[in-house]
């Protein structure tokens, strides 16, 4: 009897210390993940085809507050940093965070670590919308709007199609998403076939491969609002994702209405993804790989995983975009780089993996 008590006490001590250590480690990791995108943001502002020293960049950034700081720096450099690099870096952060966060949310809802935000076809729909607008010689804002609209349309079609068949809702939803995605993919191929190979087709191809060249302060407003709002919502319900990932039955048993939550999360994630894709084109891999990387780093508890993937996604895309615009005189499409760089990173992370997903 006594020895049992002693055993309990000892185990409590041991676990307390260990727990304390764990908490410190966790907080350190949290801090790092929070700071990483911010640090990268400022670093990458100093990189680019046009040489600008980092001290100069700092001065330029502060110059709206006190113009004298930027005296002596060529006007072109200033405009480049403020008008070209700054919005682009910000967009990379937002889009990367969007893709990472929505990938995590979808993996939770579908209980499947192999899906990304395109499971319901939003990216394929957006690709089609953009191709259509490019074919009809639309202006850039029209391309963006069309991509956004068709992205939403694709998800709605997948969603309402799945309501027709009630017995295994999750499976049917996945299936409908894949079907709708394929449908829009085929339609996009059709548009590519019809397009003028000398100018429209390369435009469509480049758009589909993803790039942030056309970012400016004008077309960022919608992106900023939707991404920040959506990310906030996902952050607030992040713990609920744990429960949704157990399945509808258990969720209901725990007092959560899974259908309503899923609809809200899907709507939010779709808006975020559509907004991102309509600005940047199709960027694959981020939504699939970042949640895995996040799980390997902080574990599957969405309370920590979601913020982690927001941060990782933002950092990753920022890094990729900096390479895309700096390495060669011509722009390298983002979709090319995300795979080339993302896959080795994931393989390295997998080797350090603790357990399961």
């Amino acid at each position, binding site marked *: 009897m006594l020895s049992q008590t002693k055993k309990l006490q000892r185990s409590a001590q041991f676990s307390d210390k260990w727990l304390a250590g764990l908490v410190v480690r966790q907080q350190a990791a949290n801090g790092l993940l929070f700071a990483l995108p911010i640090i990268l943001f400022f670093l990458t502002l100093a990189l680019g*085809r*046009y040489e600008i020293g980092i001290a100069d960049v700092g001065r330029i950034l502060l110059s709206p507050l006190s113009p004298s700081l930027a005296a002596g720096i060529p006007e072109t450099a200033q*405009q480049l940093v403020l008008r*070209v690099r700054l919005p682009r870096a910000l967009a990379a952060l937002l889009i990367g965070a969007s893709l990472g966060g929505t990938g995590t949310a979808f993996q939770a809802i579908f209980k499947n670590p192999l899906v990304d935000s395109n499971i319901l076809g939003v990216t394929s729909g957006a690709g089609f919308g953009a191709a259509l607008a490019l074919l009809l010689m639309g202006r850039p804002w029209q391309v963006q709007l069309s991509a956004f609209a068709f992205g939403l349309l694709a998800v709605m079609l997948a969603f309402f199609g799945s309501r027709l068949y009630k017995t295994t809702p999750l499976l049917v939803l996945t299936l409908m998403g894949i079907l709708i995605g394929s449908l829009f993919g085929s339609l996009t191929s059709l548009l590519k076939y019809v397009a003028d190979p000398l100018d429209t087709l*390369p435009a469509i191809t480049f758009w589909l491969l993803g790039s942030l060249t056309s970012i400016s302060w004008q077309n960022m407003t919608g992106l900023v609002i939707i991404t920040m709002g959506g990310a906030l919502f996902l952050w607030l319900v992040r713990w609920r994702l744990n429960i949704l990932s157990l399945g509808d039955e258990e969720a209901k048993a725990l007092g959560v209405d899974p259908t309503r939550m899923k609809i809200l999360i899907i709507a939010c994630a779709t808006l975020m993804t559509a907004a991102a894709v309509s600005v940047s084109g199709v960027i694959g891999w981020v939504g699939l790989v970042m949640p895995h990387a996040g799980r390997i780093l902080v574990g599957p508890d969405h309370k920590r995983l979601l913020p982690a993937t927001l941060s990782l996604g933002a950092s990753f895309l920022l890094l990729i975009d900096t390479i895309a*615009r700096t390495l060669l005189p*011509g*722009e390298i499409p983002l979709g090319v780089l995300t795979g080339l760089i993302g896959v080795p990173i994931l393989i390295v992370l997998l080797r350090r993996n603790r357990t399961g997903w």
Partner: protein
Amino acid sequence: MLVLGCSAPTPAEVTTPTAESISPVETEAISTNTPVPTTVPRFTIQADASFQPPLSALYAALYGDEQPVFVDSNADLIAAAVEGETFVPSSTQAVFLPGAALIAATDSADVLDFIAFAVSADGQQVLIEAGALPDVITLTDQAGNTVELAQPVRRVISSHGPTTALIYGVGAQDRLVAASYLGARDPAGAAAMERIDPRFPELAADDLFSQQNFNVEEAALRNPDLITTSARTQWLDVAAELDIPVFLFQAETPDLLKEAMLLAGQIFGPNTTAQAEAWVAYYESVIEAIAEHTAPLSDGERVRVLFTGTEPLRVASGEMYQTSIIELAGGVSVSAELTGYWNDVNLEQIATWNPDVIIVPPYGGASVEAITESPEWQILEAVQAGRVYRMPKLVVPWDTPAPDSVLGIIWMAQLLYPETVELDCAEQARYFYNTFYRYAITDEEVTALCTVQ
């Protein structure tokens, strides 16, 4: 009233040859005692003995039993030897045999008809039967294939826009039965093309024949003798099934363009050959004239030019014809380090290149405003100075590898070096379209083309 013995017309002096400006030169008349015909002939012909049999054949084909009347002097129609490069065909003078031209001395309709007949496909046929022209010629196309062409080539399908421009440039448009046109899809271009060639609406067949796409059955319906297209075409195997010769062009550089023109001319007979040679001579003289002024410039003094594409951030690579134009005009293409076709870049890269002048092409929805009205582009000095210009086009854009591009070079040279270059865009445009397209370009059109915005 001959055009023999003139020196090669320099660009500054070239004007539309009219009857008044041609200086008379003495000829060596063959004195024969030709009997004065009893009836009044349609027109008289002055020709060397070697030319008389083919002329008779032509005459017979046209006028049946009538005999041609040959005289020694004061003829209505003169047949004489010429040198290719110096001869510019027109409605009043044409090369009907290699090195031999027919020149109209009067305005008689019969004479002009005769000249027109002599260089038409039917006339060529007559000359072939008379043994004066070969019935088959063998040429090597620009993809390296040896092609045998039965003469005369009467029915051509041209499924590549620039190639069609070549055919118009050498004056063989009457041989077309269907063609894909460059720069004729927008309403202004289409209207201009129709003015240039009234047959354009029925000839235009872009949906049937293009670089990606060849409707074999429609082609067979038109019964062509020859198909001309670009060497980059994808459907060559299909066309081979029709058993019709296919001639491939690939004119991405100035040298290749000249070669393409000459080949195009040779396909259709001596007159078109002469026109092609005339164009090549013109092209070279233009380049020479510009080089005179720009060659001494050092690299640092040359104007830096950025040639953009259908999007402001899509630029021409160093391997494209547009870069050649810039260089021939004496400028430097900032994007010459890129390779391939159109390249996508970002604004920073353009800022690093720092061009002095930005050129926007006249196709693909590109516009000057897209650049000048965009706040980000203001970081470039060229945009701030307002030096963003649109390459002109009447039908064929002046920056594409087609005969019209000679004007593109002139236009650009005048733009980049207005003080030193003496060629005048308006003057040259008139000359070019009158001569090579046989199109009386209006003053409005010239102004629209040459006024720089």
